[in-house]
């Protein structure tokens, strides 16, 4: 029996090392971080949208017996073979890397000799892939019509329409899809909304020819006024929360959900240095804490940026070829008419692309997200990124009167960082201090003599002191 599975699990990303051109006192490099999965049970979907035209790419990190793989997705229109494309898994990984929340490091100058500054950034690897189950076969006295039947790459695909849910369910079951009982109502709702069903399973021969363990992402292009993502089937038999990453690529600006509130993930926070080794845990707990403050679920914007650049870059912006592969169909339109999008000198010198990327991280379950996700493109081009900052204190020799004051400032700063971290993650300050100590990084300065504060009244009667 094939599994009726909508979503799979997550995997971590490898990293890119990019040397950024030096500009002002800002130079940076980005380091990889080998991590375990940050979010289990999560899916990745890229949505390219302009007008009614949509290209959806669904990543698939299904690892296992290909005969067990099957997926069922409601789609707004009948899909023909030409509208389906097998994409490259690396693409979504790259998009994920480019948009991932990032950790930035700054190094304090020697307070005695302010000379240079260095910065380093590291990105959190948050990653995953979605997918579902597949199937196939004949009959249709059940009111099920096979609108299209074709194979693309390693997938055998059918596009079904149905008159009623019981028939569809019977058909799916007799064709090897294990559909949870509770899904019947949801299927019925989709049928009445005139949705079709995209069902796919793996063609073993083709898979063998193609080799490799992973199944490649499926991209589907269609035209429909519905700008949405069906999540209801996936919640029917899911236990607990699911994480979904939606990367939208649009022409004008940010994408937000219209039937749920889209909020920004906390960003630009200064954190203790040891987070460098615990960035994955930090991010996971911070996300969880943010979601818990909204009742445990929500739509969080983790990144929204003009695809022409990034600062700091967790990965290079996607190339034209990559964007085309993802379905950005307007790339060549009036290219030269587009103003060169501004900012920093770090921007790659290439022709401006009219592409805006939004990364939404959705944590949901059936109860808190009863409705499918509905989206809307806005004209908002204000860039946003999940960015977390480490500020290294100067750790060399300091031999000047300013040093003491500097150390006091650093200690005060570090105390604030501990509070920020506790607030963001829900970690106890005691735990944070222990971690800090254990890491041996970014500890407080030992001040020579705890300097007595000099108040103005001490200065009026200095002789009375002591």
């Amino acid at each position, binding site marked *: 029996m094939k599994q009726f599975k909508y979503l799979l699990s997550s995997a971590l990303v490898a990293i890119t090392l990019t040397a950024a051109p030096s500009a002002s006192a800002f130079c940076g490099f980005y380091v990889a971080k080998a991590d375990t999965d940050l979010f289990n049970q999560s899916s990745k979907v890229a949505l390219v949208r302009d007008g009614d035209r949509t290209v959806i790419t669904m990543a698939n990190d299904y690892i296992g017996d290909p005969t067990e793989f099957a997926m069922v997705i409601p789609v707004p229109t009948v899909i023909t073979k030409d509208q389906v494309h097998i994409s490259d898994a690396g693409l979504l990984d790259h998009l994920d890397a480019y948009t991932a929340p990032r950790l930035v490091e700054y190094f304090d100058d020697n307070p005695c000799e302010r000379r240079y500054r260095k910065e380093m950034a590291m990105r959190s690897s948050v990653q995953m892939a979605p997918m579902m189950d597949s199937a196939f076969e004949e009959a249709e006295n059940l009111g099920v019509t096979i609108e299209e039947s074709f194979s693309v790459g390693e997938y055998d695909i059918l596009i079904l329409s149905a008159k009623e849910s019981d028939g569809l369910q019977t058909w799916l079951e007799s064709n090897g899809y294990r559909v949870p009982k509770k899904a019947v109502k949801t299927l019925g709702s989709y049928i*009445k909304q005139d949705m079709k069903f995209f069902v796919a399973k793996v063609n073993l021969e083709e898979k063998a020819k193609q080799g490799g363990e992973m199944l490649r992402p499926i991209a589907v292009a269609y035209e429909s006024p519905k700008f949405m993502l069906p999540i209801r089937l996936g919640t029917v038999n899911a236990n607990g929360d699911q994480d979904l990453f939606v990367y939208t690529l649009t022409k*004008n600006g940010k994408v*937000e959900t219209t039937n749920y*509130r889209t909020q920004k993930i906390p960003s630009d926070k200064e954190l203790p240095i040891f987070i460098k080794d615990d960035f994955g845990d930090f991010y996971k707990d911070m996300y969880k804490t943010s979601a818990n403050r909204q009742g445990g679920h929500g739509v969080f914007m983790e990144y929204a940026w003009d695809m022409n650049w990034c600062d700091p870059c967790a990965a290079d912006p996607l190339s034209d070829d990559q964007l085309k592969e993802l379905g950005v169909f307007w790339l060549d339109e009036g290219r030269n008419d587009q103003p060169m999008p501004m900012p920093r000198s770090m921007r790659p010198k290439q022709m401006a692309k009219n592409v805006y990327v939004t990364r939404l991280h959705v944590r949901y379950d059936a*109860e808190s997200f009863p*409705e499918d996700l*509905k989206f*809307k493109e806005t*004209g908002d*081009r204000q860039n946003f990124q999940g960015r977390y900052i480490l500020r290294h204190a100067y750790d060399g020799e300091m031999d000047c009167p300013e040093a003491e004051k500097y150390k006091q400032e650093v200690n005060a700063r570090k105390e604030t960082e501990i509070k920020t971290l506790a607030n963001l993650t829900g970690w106890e300050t005691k735990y944070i201090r222990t971690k800090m100590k254990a890491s041996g990084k970014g500890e407080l300065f030992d001040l020579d003599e705890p300097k007595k504060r000099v108040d103005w009244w001490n200065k009026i009667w200095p002789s009375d002191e002591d």
Partner: protein
Amino acid sequence: MAGISQYMQKRGALISALLADPRHYQIIVLSSLILLGTFHFAFQLPWWHVVACVGSTVGTQAIADKIIGRRFDARSPLISALSLTLLLRTGSVTLSVAAGILAISSKYIVRWRGKHIFNPANFGLVILSLLFTGAWISPGQWGTAPIFALFLLGMGGIVTGKAKRWDVSIALLVSYAALLFGRALWLGDPLTIPVHQLQSGALLIFAFFMISDPKTTPDARLGRVLYAILVATLGFTIQFAFYNAAGIILALILTAPIVPLFDRLFPAGRIHWPNFQISKTGVSHETVQIPAE
């Protein structure tokens, strides 16, 4: 002591005089919502956008009043500006100003039998979001927090109760809810779906602060109720058949031109805003408050 109680009495009288005009409630509630949106919901709403929008509506009203020789009153344009800033999202202050000018000028230009046709904020909002990609309506920005929904309901009840236009708000919400529940039952969806759809901050703001405007709704109660049902039905259709989340807001501008028809079918007295000294006499019809001029 007598002095103090006299003072308190005076003060009480002043407060009730202030609150007698429903527009004051509206201004207070809308301003609180803006503060809440900015500080609690982190809307991207810089204060200068609010100032610019208020400036443009009040300024337009002042100029227009001067031209037609009417006494200037800043309260109505202030309410329009607050509604606009609550529902229109834009990164451009120029568009905020444009929305304000457009909203108020529509009051003076598009008129029929002494009544303006379009709800000014609704007009500015829809025209701007249709014409410019840099301006849009953000129906999801308020989320669905049920407590917040209740809070809005309570506040809205007071406001529209004062304005004697709670009937249009309730009729709209009830008919819209009936459509949502009907749809869910037809689709076999769990009822959590229509409940979720009703807990929309944008819907409630619309119901309590936009469609309830006494100047642009039909004069008679029956007319208003029928009108609200029409707006709900059209808004529902736009939302679910044409997949535009701002359906209800579009429905208002589309149906506004037939309000005169409702007034013809169901004639009734027209509302006038009260003056600062509230006249306790002369309220001869429930929708008529005679200005004490």
